């Protein structure tokens, strides 16, 4: 996973609320191996129906500014693969689907939640063609010479900054896991499948 620190550039706007993961990648493509390049399936049906769809499959932006509840619905991680394979590294929205947020951080994709006022200001800047900067370490988005702070789960931030694999990090707690596991038969024997 590539560590995430600071990202600057132009952004693409996708303002519609409740863009679900079925839109981001229709279910019929989820059977394909990752090696196919999931960017080819990114917003497949929406792009097909709209020649002016702002996000291309070939990676025309690293930053996406999206509407509220982005990535709601199905837990399919293919939605994150499609964005990541198209080169998107950060999505800024007023809110995200909970599972999408978890899936994103597991793939080095930063989800930035901005309060409504800040989000509107960033959207206006992007709509006006301005470049923006996302600084994860300092937790702000800079647009039109103004900095907008965002909150992020410290653990998620640390993992994104370091680009570390979760499993490797978890295995640092191997003794704790072993101890917990060893106590289950005495604590909750009924939880072991009969």
């Amino acid at each position: 996973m590539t560590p995430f620190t600071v990202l600057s550039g132009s952004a693409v706007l996708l303002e519609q609320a409740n863009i679900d993961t079925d839109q981001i990648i229709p279910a019929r493509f989820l059977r394909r191996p990752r090696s196919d390049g999931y960017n080819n399936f990114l917003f497949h049906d929406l792009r097909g129906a709209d020649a002016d769809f702002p996000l291309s499959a070939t990676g025309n932006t690293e930053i996406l500014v999206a509407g509220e509840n982005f990535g709601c619905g199905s837990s399919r991680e293919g939605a994150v693969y499609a964005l990541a394979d198209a080169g998107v590294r950060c999505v800024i929205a007023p809110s995200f689907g909970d599972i999408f947020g978890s899936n994103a951080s597991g793939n080095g994709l930063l989800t930035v939640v901005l309060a409504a006022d800040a989000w509107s200001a960033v959207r206006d800047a992007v709509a006006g063609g301005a470049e923006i900067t996302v600084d994860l370490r300092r937790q702000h988005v800079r647009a039109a010479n103004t900095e907008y702070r965002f909150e992020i789960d410290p653990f998620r931030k640390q993992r994104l900054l370091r680009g570390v694999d979760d499993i490797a990090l978890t295995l640092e707690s191997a003794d704790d896991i072993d101890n917990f596991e060893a106590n289950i038969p005495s604590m909750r024997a009924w939880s072991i499948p009969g």
Partner: protein
Amino acid sequence: MAQPLTLLDKIWNAHVIVARDDGTHLLWIDRHLVHDGSFHAFGILHRDGRAMRRPDLTFGVADHYVPSHARTLPIEDPDAARLVAHLGENAQRHGFDVMGMHDPRQGIVHVVGPEQGLTLPGVTLVCGDSHTATHGAFGALAFGIGATEAAHVLATQTLWQRKPRQMRIIIDGRLGPHVSAKDAILAVIARIGAAGGAGHAIEYAGTAVQSMSMEARMTLCNMTIEAGSRTGMVAPDDTTFAWLRGRPRAPRATQWETAVDAWRSLRSDPDAFFDQEVWMDADAIAPTVTWGTSPDTGLPITGHVPNPDDAPDRATADRIAAQIAYMGLEPNQALDGIKVDRIFIGSCTNGRIDDLRAAAAVLRGRKAAIPGRVVAGSTPVKRQAEREGLDRVFTAAGLVWGEPGCSSCTGMNGDVVPPGERCAATSNRNFVGRQGPGSRTHLMSPAMAAAAAVSGTLHDVRRLVT
């Protein structure tokens, strides 16, 4: 005095292995369910050369890609056939129990888990599917995860999680005739919105919930994700214990009594804190259908398609107009009477025996005016329905009786709704293209889908069956 705890608090606390100062906890996972769509997670595990920690706590079932046509035929789509085969290969390689396409226990993962007694009160249960909240009906902490998290569970039997905020939805009173848990959850989602539960765990409570069957509670919890929340739960009670007793993998003999004793403490303490509470009146809930392309567009069947001109702001007006255009409707159009092309009864939301009985009660002695498919949620449900003669009610009405699986809910298995066609469905998502490119989905209960079959339109089941 000890601090009052919620149901979630109690299960959570019992599973914390490591508590970091920043509020992230490493949780032990008691059950991991995998399916034929879980190949990305195994791909990550194999890519990194890792082993599975607890294959004995992992259970596989083929559901997303299995066709609903006769099982004597091979799967037509080579990709789907490969994924179903792949699940069996992974089970063999790692040594976990798998319920493949021909297994008598096979079905949709969220029907099979409870049926086999794998889903129990007080356990943590995860699955690479957003409708995993279904299992919360038993008082389990159950939530959907992506492939990276699933790989993490395969390798470590743990997950890093932040404790969600907590919301309690209290539904008091009694649901009216032909009004079901599906109508209740559609009404809940319409009330709080598609993101209303985001960042929260939801506990469903109240007298209407207490009097629900386990099947109804599963329907209720199933669509929690459609309100933006990963996990929904109901405190276990005698209804729960009676349903689970004697299930194949449930605790046995003296272990059962110990388990029930432990489970009885799994309820929110009287003064436990919830970040939000919502009250609903069960008596006021009507048979509900969605009109748009988001599950929060449910309205009573007696209602009308909204008019963008009545919207409070421009963004809302645009959103309503776009949905009306996609769905091929008119503003202010009465919902009752909208012409429907086909129906689908099934899915992890409404593929259980109660659901099939409710649909059959409407269809018995009647003919369907439009084509449709009825798909049991599992092979045991299918067998039970056949013992009760429900399959003959459906086929006599002119509907197709399919083989268990996700079928038309996702359209991943050949059961697609053609472009522009309107489907009355008991599934959980009406998203643009969900049932196939250009498909138009109206979500509703099994009784209402049956009424749509008979009338060929969206129709108030209470006017058809008195």
